[in-house]
């Protein structure tokens, strides 16, 4: 495996404003993402997960350290070959599903046939072929999120950043969307970087899971799941699934308590 993304000493401090003090939100963080891996990040609310994703995407500049994508430093501009799916609905309500998915391709120099083929493939991959002429308002929240995923996939990114893409969906839909995401990951061969607050989702989907501390967010643990590449949501039935999720929660519980301002209680065995 080769390193695709390298974060070195990355940190973010938001400057003081007339009404707020300066805020050290993130870092320092050192992390390497390997080409083709599925990496998930979990952490307490407000620990800077989304800020980290936006730094990698080039949407927010880091105030310290550096981020390299395929050997090139990311500096204030979204690099080519990176796709992002946000938690919020980013479908374009004035365009139908096909036009939404093709949105990013209009500036490409691809022939129309090639563009149409890519859109068709992406729609098939996310299971929306039958809704090609529907408008986002006619779709459920999960389907709209799939439109956004398809819009990212047609650009054939080598790195896909997902910022809690299933955060607004119910548990069953999330599990099914997770299956679809794994299918897409295998089909595209892209590296996936997933931000989530759901520990079971991270455990089910990822090859490695980074656990972040309370603000300022740092990586305090990286857990390897050792799942086979061919997997789906039935992996939750494995005994290791519970063990991994429990390990994540053990680390995260203390950090979450810090976030809500509670003292970390001693384990019962120590009392």
């Amino acid at each position, binding site marked *: 495996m080769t390193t695709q993304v390298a974060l070195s000493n990355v940190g973010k401090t938001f400057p003081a404003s007339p009404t707020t003090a300066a805020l050290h939100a993130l870092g320092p963080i050192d992390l390497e993402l390997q080409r083709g891996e599925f990496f998930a990040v979990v952490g307490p609310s407000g620990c800077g997960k989304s800020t980290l994703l936006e730094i990698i995407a080039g949407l927010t500049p880091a105030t310290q350290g550096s981020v390299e994508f395929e050997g090139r430093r990311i500096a204030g501009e*979204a690099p080519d070959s990176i796709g*992002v799916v*946000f938690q*919020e609905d980013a479908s*374009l309500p004035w365009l139908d599903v096909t036009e939404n998915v093709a949105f990013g391709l209009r500036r490409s120099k691809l022939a129309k046939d090639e563009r149409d083929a890519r859109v068709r493939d992406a729609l098939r991959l996310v299971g929306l072929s039958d809704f090609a002429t529907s408008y986002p*308002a006619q779709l459920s929240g999960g389907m709209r999120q799939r439109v956004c995923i398809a819009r990212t996939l047609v650009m054939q990114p080598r790195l896909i950043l997902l910022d809690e893409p299933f955060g607004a969906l119910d548990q069953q839909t999330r599990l099914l969307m997770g299956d679809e995401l794994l299918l897409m990951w295998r089909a595209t061969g892209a590296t996936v970087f997933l931000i989530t607050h759901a520990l079971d989702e991270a455990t089910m989907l990822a090859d490695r899971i980074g656990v972040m501390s309370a603000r300022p967010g740092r990586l305090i643990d990286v857990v390897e799941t050792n799942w086979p590449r061919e997997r789906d949501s039935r992996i939750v039935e494995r005994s290791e699934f519970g063990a991994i999720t429990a390990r994540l929660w053990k680390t995260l519980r203390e950090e979450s308590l810090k976030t809500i301002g509670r003292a970390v209680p001693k384990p019962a065995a120590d009392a």
Partner: protein
Amino acid sequence: MKRLFLYRLAVVAGAIALLEIFCLTGVIDKITMQPPHLIARDLYRLLASGRMNGAIWKTSTNTLLALVLALGVGVVAAALLHRLRALRDTLDPLFATYYAVPVFAFYPFFIVVFGLGDLPQILIAFMLGVVAMIVNTLNGLDRVPPVLLKTGRIMRLTPIDTALRLTLPAAGPYILTGVKLAVAYAFIGIIGSEFILSRGGIGYEINFAYNNFDNATMYPLIVLILLASIAINTVLTRWEKTLLARRGAR
């Protein structure tokens, strides 16, 4: 919907019938107003004779010109102001009080500067419409979800692409509200100006007929303006409903 339409139709028909009765029974005297059926007949004769074609053409083209100017300048100005925060903060209070200023009060100035041609009339109509466009477009741009702007950056759209393909379409329903207002203001501006600034146009003809007690011309022309306004507004409202329905609203 159909029932609502029928109710509306009944209200309008009832009002016309009442007017007809008042006119025919002498409650409203003949010098003040003709009965509606005569107004309709005179309107038909006026249009069929072609006597008003020049005035209709002049008013229509000037209104359209003022409207196009107001829409173009309004949208571009709003898009620029949305990016230039300091300038917007400076101008916002002026926009808020703009319609308290009677634009028609400037007409002597416009005559001195631009003469008695079409230009001052178009300018007055433009001035009335442009701020409605700016304010409504800004309102729409303020409501564009930040995630769409991030999407534009991820797609590496240029600022112009972002405006044309993301932010302005996202602000579409608000812009359309601005268009509806601008249409109304453009009509008011042009026809009002023709009353005082012009030697032609429907406004001028209405004023001329009024001064000569020519009810057979004045009322049909008023009805003509009314019908044109209703027709345009109906088309725009239908367009707005389609837009909103597509977006899952209303």
